[in-house]
């Protein structure tokens, strides 16, 4: 289990990148809405799309880790 547990924790490092990516996207979106409140709805959809795409990496890491746990 030792090596496998290490590999699983490495796969879950992908979650860190998703956190950083989403925080960047949200920070920029907040800035943009503060500058131009009338464009809020358009910024929101773009931000949601960006967050969803950034989140995909975390989900891939999670699914791979799950497969490692299940298929031991």
């Amino acid at each position, binding site marked *: 289990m030792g090596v496998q547990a290490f590999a699983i924790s490495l796969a879950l490092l992908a979650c860190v990148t998703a956190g950083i990516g989403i925080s960047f996207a949200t920070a920029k979106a907040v800035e943009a809405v503060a500058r131009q409140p009338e464009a809020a709805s358009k910024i929101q*959809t773009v931000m*949601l*799309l960006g967050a*969803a795409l950034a*989140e*995909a990496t975390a*989900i*891939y890491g*999670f*699914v791979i880790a*799950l497969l490692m746990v*299940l298929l031991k």
Partner: protein
Amino acid sequence: MEELGERIKEVMTSNRIDIHLFGYTIPISDAVITMWIIMGVLIILSIVFTRKLQTIPEGKQNVVETIVEFINKLTENSIGHHWKLFAPYIGTVLLFLVFSNTISIFNIIPSGEQLYKLTHIEALKKIPDFNLLPPTKNASVAMGFAVMSMIAVIISGIRVNKVKGWLKSFLKPVPILLPFKILDYFIRPLSLCFRQYGNVLGAVIIMELIYSSLPAFLPGALSIYFDIFDGVLQAYVFVFLTSLYIAEGIE
């Protein structure tokens, strides 16, 4: 600890229920049965809510009109000119996914065994278990939805641009990109499927951990985020990405 691991494994694997019909045994997974329940609820709701429609809306008609207008605006904003073709499909998938992702809020109702563990009253053990798990935590259900939206992209491309225009769109910016354009049709459904499946399964597992470690008060507050907010957001993102792909396909 062992018990918890067993429970999580039970959540991740799909159970099969055998139905005996005319001498044949038909194995049906629990996700299908949950989807039948959701389908029934949606059909009944849509029949009840659209009876006696009037020009001046009042009461329950207002609710339906708000939902339909939201879906129309969503498709119009992302697809543009041809939105009327796709609004029904997008709306159906959105409603179904919202219901199926949030169905696990019924797990808040404690099962009879949990109540018995807390109170040691024998009579409580007989209460039936409302353990409905979202069908999208099954990877094959999520893959089905992803393949459906990819087929919608192909059909919309052929319908709007005709066969010739659709085939030409593979060579659109530069012909060198052809292998990547073909790869797109395999990677997109995979990413749609994993996004839905991973998010829902993650939320279900986290909620299961919370239920087993602290069965009172805390699950109620956290399930607002993990069951309702996350489920609705993922359904919206799925539908939004589908409409974006369609918009790209009919360019």
